[in-house]
C-alpha cells in the first residue's frame, strides 16, 4: 500500500508540468476579447523579445498593453463577424460528411512533403455518436509508415478525457498489425477539424481579403493560436475551410481539407488495409528509432503556497 505522503510527493513532482509564464501570457494576449479584434503585430514582437530575455515583469506589462483595447476598423470586425457566421453555418451543414485532411510539412530547412493523410467521419460528431477515423502517416519519400484506423464514442464536453473504442495499427516498417480494444486518451492536433471549429467559434479570426487557391476563389483569414501569424483559406462559394497553415515552434504545417459525401466508396477509405503477409501482434511493433509521442521539458520547481482562504462567488 502507498501512503498519503507518497501521494503528496508525487503531486509535488507534477509541478514540472507547470507552463512558463512567458508561454501563457503572450498566448492569452493574442486571444484578448475572443472576438475579431485586429491583431497588432508589434505587441507580439515586443512580448516575444521580452520573453526571450526572461523579463517576467516586463512581459506582464507588455501583455497587459496587448490585452487593452486597441485601434480597430469597425468594418473589418464586421466582415470577420459575418464570415464567422457563414463559416459556422457551412460547417454545421456539412457536419455529416467525411473530412479528408492532408498534412504537409513546410518547416524551414526541409523539403515540403506530405506527412499524413487522414479521414474522419462524421467530421462534426455529436456526443455519444460513434466516430471513425483513419490516419496514414507517410515517410518523407511518400511511402506508408503507419496506417491506423479507430472507432470510438464521442465524448460530451463535460465528460472525462477518455473514450472507449478500438484501434487497428498497421506498421509498415515492421510489417506487423495489431488490434486493440481499450480506453483512449485524446491528443491535441492544431489542424484537426474540431480544433478548427473551436477557433472559428471563438472568433479568433480576422478577414484579410480575397485570393485564389489553385485558381479557386478563396477568402484569406488570419487567426492566432500562438506567437506566429497563421492563416486559413475559405472557399469563397461554400464557406468551407480549404486550407490552414499553422506554425508551432520551428514546425510549419499545412492542412488541406476536402469534404466527401458518406458514400460506400468514401466510407471504405476509413479502413486501413492490411497488406498480405503482415504478422498480427498484440501491441504495435514500431521501429526502434521511432520518435516518442511526447517530448516534455522540465519546468522549474518553486514552492507552492497553500490556498486556504475562499473567495466570494462562484468563478468560472
Amino acid at each position, binding site marked *: 500500500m502507498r501512503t498519503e505522503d507518497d501521494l503528496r510527493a508525487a*503531486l509535488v513532482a507534477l509541478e514540472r508540468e507547470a507552463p512558463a509564464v512567458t508561454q501563457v501570457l503572450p498566448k492569452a494576449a493574442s486571444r484578448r476579447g475572443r472576438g475579431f479584434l485586429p491583431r497588432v503585430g508589434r505587441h507580439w514582437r515586443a512580448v516575444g523579445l521580452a520573453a526571450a530575455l526572461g523579463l517576467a515583469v516586463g512581459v506582464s506589462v507588455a501583455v497587459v498593453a496587448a490585452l487593452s483595447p486597441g485601434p480597430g476598423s469597425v468594418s473589418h470586425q464586421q466582415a470577420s463577424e459575418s464570415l464567422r457566421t457563414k463559416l459556422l453555418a457551412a460547417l454545421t451543414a456539412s457536419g455529416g460528411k467525411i473530412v479528408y485532411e492532408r498534412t504537409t510539412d513546410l518547416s524551414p530547412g526541409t523539403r515540403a512533403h506530405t506527412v499524413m493523410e487522414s479521414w474522419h467521419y462524421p467530421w462534426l460528431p455529436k456526443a455519444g455518436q460513434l466516430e471513425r477515423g483513419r490516419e496514414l502517416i507517410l515517410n518523407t519519400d511518400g511511402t506508408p509508415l503507419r496506417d491506423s484506423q479507430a472507432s470510438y464514442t464521442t465524448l460530451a464536453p463535460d465528460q472525462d478525457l477518455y473514450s472507449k473504442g478500438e484501434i487497428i495499427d498497421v506498421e509498415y516498417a515492421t510489417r506487423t498489425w495489431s488490434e486493440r480494444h481499450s480506453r483512449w486518451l*485524446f491528443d491535441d492536433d492544431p489542424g484537426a477539424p*474540431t480544433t478548427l471549429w473551436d477557433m472559428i467559434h471563438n472568433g479568433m479570426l480576422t478577414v484579410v481579403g480575397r485570393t485564389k487557391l489553385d485558381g479557386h476563389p478563396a477568402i484569406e483569414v488570419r487567426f492566432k493560436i500562438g506567437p506566429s501569424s497563421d492563416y486559413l483559406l475559405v472557399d469563397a462559394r461554400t464557406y468551407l475551410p480549404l486550407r490552414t497553415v499553422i506554425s508551432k515552434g520551428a514546425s510549419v504545417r499545412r492542412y488541406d481539407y476536402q469534404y466527401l459525401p458518406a458514400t460506400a466508396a468514401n466510407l471504405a477509405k476509413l479502413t486501413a488495409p492490411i497488406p498480405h503477409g503482415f504478422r498480427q501482434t498484440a501491441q504495435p511493433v514500431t521501429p526502434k528509432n521511432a520518435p516518442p509521442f511526447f517530448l516534455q521539458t522540465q519546468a522549474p520547481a518553486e514552492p507552492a503556497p497553500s490556498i486556504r482562504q475562499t473567495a466570494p462567488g462562484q468563478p468560472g
Partner: protein
Amino acid sequence: MRFEEFAAARLPAVLRFAGVLTGDRGLAEDVVQEVLIRTHKRWQQIGELDRPELYVRKMVVNEYLSWRRRSWRLIPFGTAHDIDRRLVADHAQAHAERDALLAELGKLPRRQRTVLVLRYYEGLVDNEIADVLGCSPGTVRGYASRALAALRVELEPRALSEEGYR
C-alpha cells in the same frame, strides 16, 4: 492590485497549480489561458478581492473540469508505459513507484483527481474543497475515498482523528 501586478506576482503559483491539477503542461497552458482571458475582462471585480489568486484558482478548477478536448486524434491509453512517457521527462532520475502512482493518477476521473490535488497538494480541508467544487463535503469524501482506493493509498490514522479532511 492591478492586473499586471497580479500577473507578475501570482501567476507562477497559479501555473504550478494548473500543472499539478492537469498533469499535462499543454492542457495546463490552455486552461490558464482561458482563465486569464476571463480574469482580465473581469479584473475590476476580481482585483478588489483580498486574494484574487484564490478566485483565479477556482476558475482554473472549473475550467479544467469543463475542458473539452479539441482533437479527435487518439493515443492509446492502455499501458502505464504510455502515460509514463507523457508524465516523466527524465526516466533516469525518476522513481519507478512514483511514476506508477502518477500514471494511475492520470487515469482517475477529473473530479476525483481534483479532490486529491486540492487535498494533498493545496492542503484544503473537505469543506473548502466542497466550496471550490460546488458540492457537499460528503460528496468530496466520496470522491476522495474512491480515488484513494483506486490508487491503493492507505489513510494515515491521524487523518481520521483530526479535523483535517473534515
